[in-house]
């Protein structure tokens, strides 16, 4: 099976969907002539032409709103946010218009738009460019939120997102763009809302999404090597829809839970998961649920400190031991 990067996997997904459906259009800042700020869309302009690959001005509220309007008419725009952090400039368009238009029209309208881009910290770009708004997006009924952590998932989930008839916020990660993994050449789709057990285990469930999952896998290796602990690692892959069944099955199997994520702790995805788990699997818990999140402050610039603000394999390792104590 070919080994490609997360970035290439995303590009292949868009390329295939552009070829399949003439209503798919890629829009965003620097997606065409510049080849994408992070080179995700590199080569798509040359192959598909300027009608399908559209460079926008720096005008997120304008072009995202325009994409939403065009989606109401049946286009399938895939809008790139150079940084997902810039979503806040278009907050009204996303959360009043895309999220609510179906509801407020009594189901007469739907909005098949994908808004994608990197949503992560850890690259020393300061608080304005390091937002991780999974929980903020998923808070809104009408919106779907997807966070792939591997090249395979990035491709299969993005293709499903493009075909989805509801608005999907697709959150990537600049640090993962260069990560490689096996991705088949033949077409496949991954349904939104299906979590994946990345590593089977019996002693503790480490559950999360995004790059934190890659850290959790390293922590699981350390737990095995140093303490012969078998940690199960569950990647949510999709926040809304949420695969509660896979999460709860893992909890019932290991009886101990550590939740990990790169976002801040307050009102986060892990906070919601902890609520769901205590409500639906309380009797299966042998210890309190613990979490590893980013330290609760705006993203600090200082490189060594930012590393410590975010989850690390060591922090996840330590927290897992605390759950098992």
């Amino acid at each position: 099976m070919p080994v490609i990067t997360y970035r290439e996997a995303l590009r292949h997904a868009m390329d295939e969907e552009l070829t399949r459906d003439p209503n798919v259009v890629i829009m965003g800042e620097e997606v065409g002539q510049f080849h994408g700020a992070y080179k995700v869309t590199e080569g798509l302009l040359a192959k598909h032409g300027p009608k399908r690959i559209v460079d926008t001005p720096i005008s997120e509220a304008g072009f995202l709103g325009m994409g939403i309007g065009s989606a109401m008419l049946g286009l399938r725009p895939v809008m790139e946010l150079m940084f997902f952090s810039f979503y806040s400039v278009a907050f009204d368009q996303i959360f009043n218009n895309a999220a609510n238009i179906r509801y407020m029209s009594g189901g007469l309208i739907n909005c098949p738009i994908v808004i994608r881009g990197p949503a992560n910290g850890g690259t020393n770009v300061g608080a304005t460019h390091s937002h991780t708004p999974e929980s903020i997006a998923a808070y809104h009924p009408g919106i779907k939120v997807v966070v792939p952590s591997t090249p395979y998932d990035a491709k299969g989930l993005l293709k499903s997102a493009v075909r989805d008839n509801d608005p999907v916020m697709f959150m990537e990660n600049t640090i993962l763009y260069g990560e490689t993994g096996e991705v088949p050449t033949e077409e496949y789709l991954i349904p939104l809302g299906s979590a994946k057990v990345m590593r089977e285990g019996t002693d503790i469930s480490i559950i999360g999404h995004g790059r934190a999952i890659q850290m959790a896998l390293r922590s699981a290796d350390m737990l095995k090597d140093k303490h012969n602990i078998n940690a199960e690692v569950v990647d949510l892959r999709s926040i809304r829809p949420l695969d509660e069944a896979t999460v709860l099955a893992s909890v019932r199997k290991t009886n101990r839970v550590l939740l990990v994520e790169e976002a801040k702790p307050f009102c986060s995805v892990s906070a919601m998961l902890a609520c769901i788990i205590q409500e639906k699997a309380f009797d299966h818990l042998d210890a309190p649920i613990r979490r590893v999140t980013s330290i609760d402050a705006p993203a600090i610039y200082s490189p060594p400190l930012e590393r410590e603000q975010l989850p690390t394999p060591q922090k996840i390792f330590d927290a897992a031991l605390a759950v098992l104590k």
Partner: protein
Amino acid sequence: MTKKTPSPKKTEVADAGYDARQAPINAKLGPDEKIQFFRDMLRIRRFEERCLRSYQQGKIGGFLHLYIGQESVAVGCCSVMGDNDHIITAYRDHGHALGVGMGMNELMAENFGKYTGCSKGKGGSMHYFDPSRHYWGGHGIVGGQVPLGTGLAYGLKYKGIKGACMTFMGDGAVNQGAVHESYNLAALWDLPVVFIIENNGYSMGTSQERSSAGESLAGRAAGYGMNWAIVENGHDVYEVRDKVSRALKLAHDQCKPSVLEIRTYRYRGHSVADPDSTYRDKSEIEEYKNTKDPIMVYQNALVTEGVLTEELIKQIDDSARAEAETSAQFAEQSPYPTLEDIKKDVYWEVDNPQDKKSVGNLFFD
């Protein structure tokens, strides 16, 4: 900060001898069409008066933004819509909805929060929709619909459809960033959109002089290299039709956007909750009513022309009142949505389970 002296309004020099009645689009009108415009305007007014009564009776919740005084704008604009033209507006949306042919029953029921409403009682007065009539709302956030209208125009052009999107906003919207971003995109990419500013003089309780810099609102289009015009006599349905149809033609034939500023006036407060006692004199309202009321002016013109008679006027008025009354009864007798309906129409997938592709939980307790 020194108090800003209101800049003198730029005097619009009307084309010498301009007579909107003689414009080609109006000159060809037959009596039936003229009567229809009159009927449409009167229907909007009687519907809204009935809405107001229902609101005062406690039947309608939330806000109620009445269009009374502005009827010539919606009727004039909708009357020049072609088969491939689309329309989107803000929250003062009753006139446009009736203008595109939506029925009073579904609108009144929506105001009452009933399941028979055009949005099943989920949108309310500010959020009417009927995509089958190319009517895309009905939007509550000032200026927020303007990028959507631009996107509808983008979609038309992308699909190779020769149509345009009339994108309405109030004079209060012109200072929102989303509006300027839309102007830029429309001009940059030659999108077939007609931005229509219904300038009723007040953004809620703040007059144009107190909110908007520059001499004219539409004139800001010049900064984007866009065509623009002012419809000075927005109370004249003929002038509205003439100027708007020209902008539509520019969009259809050359795929060029325009900004039109239609000067109009609302008689009621910003919403019914606005006591309308702080920012304008009652005399101002009375003067407009007495000299420029769009229905009265048009009625007088048609009587002079011999198109309307007192008898016909009464018949049309009685019919409009009866239709509005019937809609209130319809709304009253209609059922509310059920608790189960709250979670419907959120996700397309959930409403179309046969085509559902995702798994997992979309809703949470």
